[in-house]
């Protein structure tokens, strides 16, 4: 009796018990399917966030206030008020900074925006005109914030693509219309093109106003949320980081980098942090899915044990007709592995299908996690072996005549 026969024998017995086989398989299908779907979705959202960050360009530096030890407590990013527009101007104009191409400053605050009866809770971003080129913003209609509007503290606004839809409906042209931010009337001068981002500071949900307007009219603040620095090219990133860093230390009258009341991060730094977070998240999801796989495995063990008991007479007969221990255990093991392997195969297909559907409907890039697929096959066969082992041993140990007498 060779392997191909062992496989065809176990197929034959499994087909004889279609419903039971199907139910045992379902546990594996759900287990493997959810592992694949969740890991693929995790990777796909990770990729989406990475794409978003990368799309801003690799020669961008972000300067954020705070995040220094204050009375032993680590301050949250952006909660500090140590950066000013003057800092941004200094970076742009100082002779000590030679590697920087352009600089923009941003003051960010959430606020209620209304237009007629519609309203939206948007991120209000007070920015300088350079923001458009540094953050690669394309206009769908109208124009971005200008220097004249900045200097004039004008009450004008540029709507993100989604905010425009939320406030004025799909297809309408809001340019020239009025909106109210914090009960103050603003004129819409432009709408940005959609960037198709998700979650994480979605630029489509923003409302851009001149920095001066945000600070003086809307929120009465003299600090800013972040400075974006565009280096001349990728090669001078480190130098740019140092130049900006020492300039700001000097301006804030701090002696050395350990005292810095700001943080300078490159896109790579941000990417690293975000990847770490989403990676942990993906692992967590996979762990939850793995639990369902274990439950599926126990289901298989249960069904195999019932099968062994039920087929005691058959096992006795097979032994009486000359089957050796190894063959009996191999047969039952093969049945368990066949269930888990086919279940795993279907599970992989279901998992891929589900992750495609979900990522499609959420506008995420479709990613099939290849390691997850490979792992799924190993794990499903392994599940069969681990949970099929005990019942198979039990079957192999039966005494032929005892087994034949079993009722």
């Amino acid at each position, binding site marked *: 009796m060779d392997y191909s026969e062992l496989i065809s024998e176990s197929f034959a017995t499994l087909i004889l018990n279609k419903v039971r086989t199907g139910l045992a398989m379902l546990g594996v299908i759900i287990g493997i399917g959810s592992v694949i779907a969740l890991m693929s979705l995790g990777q796909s959202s990770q990729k989406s966030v990475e794409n978003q960050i990368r799309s801003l360009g690799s020669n961008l530096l972000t300067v954020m206030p705070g995040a220094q030890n204050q009375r032993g407590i680590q301050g949250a990013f952006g909660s500090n008020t140590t950066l000013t527009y003057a800092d941004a101007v200094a970076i742009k104009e100082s002779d000590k900074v030679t590697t920087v191409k352009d600089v923009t400053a941003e003051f960010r605050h959430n606020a209620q925006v209304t237009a007629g009866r519609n309203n939206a809770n948007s991120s209000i971003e007070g920015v300088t005109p350079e923001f458009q080129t540094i953050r690669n913003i394309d206009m769908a209609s109208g124009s971005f914030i200008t220097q004249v509007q900045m200097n004039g503290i004008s009450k004008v606004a540029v709507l993100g693509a989604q905010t425009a839809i939320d406030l004025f409906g799909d297809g309408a042209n809001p340019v020239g219309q009025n909106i109210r931010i914090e009960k103050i009337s603003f004129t819409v001068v432009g709408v940005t093109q959609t960037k198709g981002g998700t979650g994480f500071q979605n630029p489509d949900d923003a409302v851009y106003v001149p920095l001066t307007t945000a600070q003086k009219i809307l929120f009465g603040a003299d600090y800013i949320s972040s400075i974006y620095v565009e280096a001349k090219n990728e090669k001078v990133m480190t130098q740019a980081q140092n130049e900006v860093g020492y300039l700001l230390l000097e301006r804030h009258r701090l002696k050395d980098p350990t005292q810095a009341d700001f943080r300078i991060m490159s896109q790579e730094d941000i990417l690293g942090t975000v990847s770490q977070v989403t990676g942990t998240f993906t692992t967590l999801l996979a762990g939850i899915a793995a639990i369902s796989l274990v439950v599926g495995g126990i289901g298989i063990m249960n069904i195999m044990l019932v099968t062994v008991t039920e087929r005691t007479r*058959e096992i006795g007969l097979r032994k009486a*007709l000359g089957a*050796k221990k190894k*063959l009996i255990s191999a047969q039952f093991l093969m049945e368990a592995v066949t269930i888990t392997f086919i279940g795993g195969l279907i599970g992989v297909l279901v998992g891929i299908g589900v992750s495609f559907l979900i990522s499609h409907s959420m506008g995420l890039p479709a990613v099939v996690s290849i390691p997850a697929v490979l792992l799924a096959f190993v794990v499903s066969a392994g599940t069969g072996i681990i949970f099929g082992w005990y019942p198979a041993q039990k079957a192999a140990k039966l005494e*032929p005549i005892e087994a034949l007498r079993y009722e």
Partner: protein
Amino acid sequence: MIKVSHLSKIYTNADVKTVALDDVSFEITQGEFVSIMGPSGSGKSTLMHILGALDVPTSGDYLLDGQRIADLDDDQLADIRNKKIGFVFQAYNLLPRTTALKNIMVPMMYGGVDKKERIKRAEKYLKMVGLENRIYHTPNQLSGGQQQRVAIARALTMNPNVILADEPTGNIASSQAAEIMRILDELNQQGHTIVIITHEQEVAAYTKRVVHLRDGRIIDNHINGKRRRY
């Protein structure tokens, strides 16, 4: 070829001891055709299971072809059951929901006979027992006598030296019983050693020697002088 000496089998269930075999000794030589008779519960099946290497005696010795069965491990026993002994059970014991052909091929599968040969032999023996038109019938689609014949065919496929049949004519009409005895007689003439259990005088009359059991003891063991031929 078969030699048992002082065989005893005592079952102990919940402190109740049942003596199924009590100091049984006899010998069966190559080419014999023996019937074992006795009332119900006299220990016939118990003896047969021990001779078939399916069960072990509580005490005493069993030598098959000079080999002490008690000295063998599980896998060696499996090999003996597969190659040396063809066993026909009192209750047929066919695999349910499995065709006659597949049932017959089971011992050959475990005996390492190659696939083509298996089908050839299975068809040959099915024909021999007159079931060439029932190849794809499953046990529940066969009559008791037909199942009995499938079980006999299965016992023959490995061409075993010894054929042990527990009541091969037990549950079937006498016309079919005669047919089965004709098959066994034919096999005996081909040189197989045959031991059958029966409680029918008519059936025992076909055999060359009759052993009588009662309460687990041999009470008679004689050559059948007026042997009946079919």
